[in-house]
């Protein structure tokens, strides 16, 4: 009796795992070339509006590009001054 319960339980586990794997995200089913992501069983296709919504603040998301643009602008001033004078001045306030 005991044995059969164990066997039953074991086969239930195997069944569950088997089903899980068959439907699970394994990276081989592609919507388009280079686009093969799928949500995992029980997880949403889109996280926006779900309990996993990252709720990113657009102002925070923009900060890196703003920083890079500002650096590029300062670097351009330094390089232009260097080409003109042959001397590299890092402090852009001292340029001009």
């Amino acid at each position, binding site marked *: 009796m005991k044995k059969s319960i164990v066997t039953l339980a074991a086969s239930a586990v195997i069944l569950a795992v088997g089903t*899980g*794997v068959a439907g*699970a*995200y*394994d*990276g*081989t089913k*592609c919507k*388009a*070339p*280079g*686009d*093969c*992501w799928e*949500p*995992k069983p029980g*997880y*949403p*296709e*889109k*996280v*926006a509006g779900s309990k*996993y919504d*990252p*709720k*990113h*603040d*657009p102002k*925070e*998301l*923009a*900060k*890196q*590009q703003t*920083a*890079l643009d*500002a*650096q*590029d602008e*300062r*670097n*351009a001033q*330094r*390089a232009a001054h*260097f*080409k003109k004078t042959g001397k*590299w001045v*890092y402090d852009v306030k001292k340029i001009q």
Partner: protein
Amino acid sequence: MKKHLGTGLLAGASCVALTVAMASSSFANDKLNELSKSNEAWVMPGKNYSSQNYSPNTQINTENVKQLRAAWSFSTGLLHGHEGTPLVVNGVMYVHTSFPNNTFALDLNDPGHILWQHKPKQDPAARSVACCDLVNRGLAYWPGDGDTPPLIIKTQLDAHLVALNAETGEEYWKVENGDIKVGQTLTQAPYVIKDLALVGSSGAELGVRGYTTAYNVKTGEQVWRVYATGPDEDIGLADDFNSANPHYGQKGLGTGTWEGDAWKIGGGTNWGWYAFDPETNLFHYGSGNPAPWNETMRPGDNKWTMTIWGRDADTGKAKFGYQKTPHDEWDYAGVNVMILSEQTDKEGKKRKLLTHPDRNGIVYTLDRENGDLISANKLDDTVNWVKQVDLKTGLPVRDPEFGTRMDHKGKEICPSAMGYHNQGHDSYDPTKELFFMGINHICMDWEPFMLPYRAGQFFVGATLWMYPGPKGDRQNYLGLGQIKAYNAITGDYKWDKMERFSVWGGTLATAGNLVFYGTLDGFIKARNSDTGELLWKYKLPSGVIGHPMTYEHKGTQYVAIMYGVGGWPGVGLVFDLQDPTAGLGAVGAFKNLANYTQMGGGLQVFSLDGKNPYSEDINVGEYEKG
């Protein structure tokens, strides 16, 4: 007599150099390529553009390696991890350090004499946004053109790229290539191609969107910048991008494989190594992991993070990109070393290849001209997140059991986030067609959590528990490393050996049938490159996370290596952390490291019988009143 011999040898050497230079006029604009062919120079990370870390020098070999002794040493005066390896050019050795990224020029005729030193003043706040110790992977060299002096190019943790006059150490130019206020730092070695200085980016653990930039070495002007994610024009795709392998994906995927604007903080920084092929004008590197580590917060393949790139050096435009780890769930940052070779494939076709041992436990070999996938083999048979990489589709066939997701603790995942391979710069012996790879043997449990993005703050979102892989000693937390000799065409491992700790720093191969590498427990070791037999080792002051290099000076072959433990495996020891999940999970895995080493920082140089300028003439470097 001795002096005469020396002069004769030197004169002979320059004759050879002249002949070589004249014979290869196609590379006449590339002095660096020429310099890299000399045994007396080590002019770039990886030694040459093929990045093979291979020296044809046979003076030190399997027969006499037991006579290898300490020749001289140099302390950098700093602690923390000392990665990378020095450069040697024109009788001068250039040594770099951990933060604040000092640079020293040493005279090889009298290495006790520091010719010049550059000590940057950096905002100490840069330390707080470095994910994984205050490391730096090295210097680059530009040989000068008559108008502009030879330059040493360096990165600083505060994200500046700096050019120094190689003769005086004076700052020639200094540009901002990142901002610590938004989490951007620099740890990698820059790379010189023609008159360009290339530099990558760090900070995927703080949500930094990766970028690679080229500056004109002569003027400091930006020439191009490309990104890892976002619109195609930002990523810099050539019109024929992936035309040889359209199934890898082509246009629109830098945004199309993300939800909304998540690509703006999408990671893909590149802080590893480069290689370059002057014939195709393509350079190769890998982009890092997507952000955050919490996979549930970024549905999609997350292109073009985790990608092997072939880009045109002059424009930065990508000819091909192959994503190794679509939708990363394990922080398998794809930045590892690229080593170029020419080999015959299984169909008998001669191919120009690149080989790349990735964090994800797969060693990839691609045709470096068009991106064709040639082989993708497991670094160890214990890799379990992927069943195999389908060479036809290029897709990794994932085992869902070892994926990660919210509200779930993934267990026994191999490799761990530290990868089965990390930042170590390995070597390739072209005569044996063998790659010598320093490998990690670390697996993990992983549980993600939700977190907001705030520019300048960490944006990880996962708790990790790491421990030795199945072949190590899980009770005693030892057996975390391996070293293996690998053939990229057959996929065979000629030999493999276990190591107490991860072989983190990379390897050096020589025509003396030797492979050298440093260990985290503070040894430099030499193995027979045919058999893997351990032939020699020496106890250094501290663990090694850089790779050995070799050079010849005045007829003597030297082997040099940095010591100074740190980097990600050293964070527990370096910052005195106890919680096993601290240091992004590395503290637990390496809890035994402190029983074998302490911090340090310096360079140790070896030669046969310890021959050095002072042993040859004891009066060298003595004080004489001027």
